[in-house]
């Protein structure tokens, strides 16, 4: 059934160069700094390569495009073994703010913008930014709660229609 399989008895044809990726749709479901950045870097990087990109913010990922919360996204210092600090220590007041401060400083040094600037920049690259309707309703939010880069609040069905013909990445 696989059409790429050579017919029995014939020599396999030289492998064709893989089709380049022309479109990505990236789902952002987490609200921590380390949960949001990879998606933004991938979306921005896609546009930089001339690849069409859509971002779909759902659940706590909505914080990345929430007018007020966008300024206060923090690194998770509890339940995050990658931090390499004991869980009880990570839970002390101010730990998350401290870790966020150091990580943000380091990111600025290597030319990665803070989240608000990054969202604005990604909007300017022509990527589509969308909020998930179910999550927006669940959190009791409305259009006015989001940054102007959010083009629309859409359903899962809308998302799949928009993602047609491209790759979907869940983060």
């Amino acid at each position, binding site marked *: 059934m696989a059409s790429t399989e050579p017919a029995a008895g014939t020599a396999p044809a030289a492998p064709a160069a893989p089709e380049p990726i022309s479109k990505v749709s990236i789902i952002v479901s987490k609200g921590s700094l380390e949960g949001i950045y990879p998606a933004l*870097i991938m979306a*921005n*990087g896609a546009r*930089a390569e*001339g690849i069409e990109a859509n971002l779909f913010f759902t659940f706590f990922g909505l914080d990345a495009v929430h007018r007020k919360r966008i300024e206060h996204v923090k690194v998770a210092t509890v339940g995050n073994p990658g931090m390499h600090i004991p869980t009880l220590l990570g839970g002390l007041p101010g730990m998350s703010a401290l870790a966020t401060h150091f990580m943000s400083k380091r990111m600025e040094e290597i*030319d990665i*913008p803070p989240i608000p600037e990054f969202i604005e920049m990604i909007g*300017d690259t022509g990527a589509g930014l969308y909020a998930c309707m179910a999550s927006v309703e669940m959190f009791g939010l409305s259009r006015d709660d989001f940054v102007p880069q959010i083009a629309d609040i859409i359903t899962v069905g809308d998302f799949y229609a928009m993602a047609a013909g491209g790759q979907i990445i869940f983060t």
Partner: protein
Amino acid sequence: MSTATYAGVTVDVNEEGFFEHPEQWTREIAEEIARADGIETLTDRHWQVIDFMRREYAEKGTGPTVRVLGKASGVSVKELYALFPKGPAKMAAHIAGIPKPKGCI
């Protein structure tokens, strides 16, 4: 390493078509690369970006990222993407005859 011929001049390029030796570049060559990349005519705004890229490369040894272009070239990120739809840093570096900028941003 391979070569490409633009405006009657043979230049050294890498496997992606980026210049190995930016000193082989001329403005006539840029016009021809732009046409091959789908930009019919290079406007003053295109040139502003191209000239900025060459200056940055000469100073720093690497082409600027889109973020730097947006902040320092005098052309906004939005306009950069309108001028160079296939990715401003990459496309402008190609036309400007400098190596492809490295980096994730």
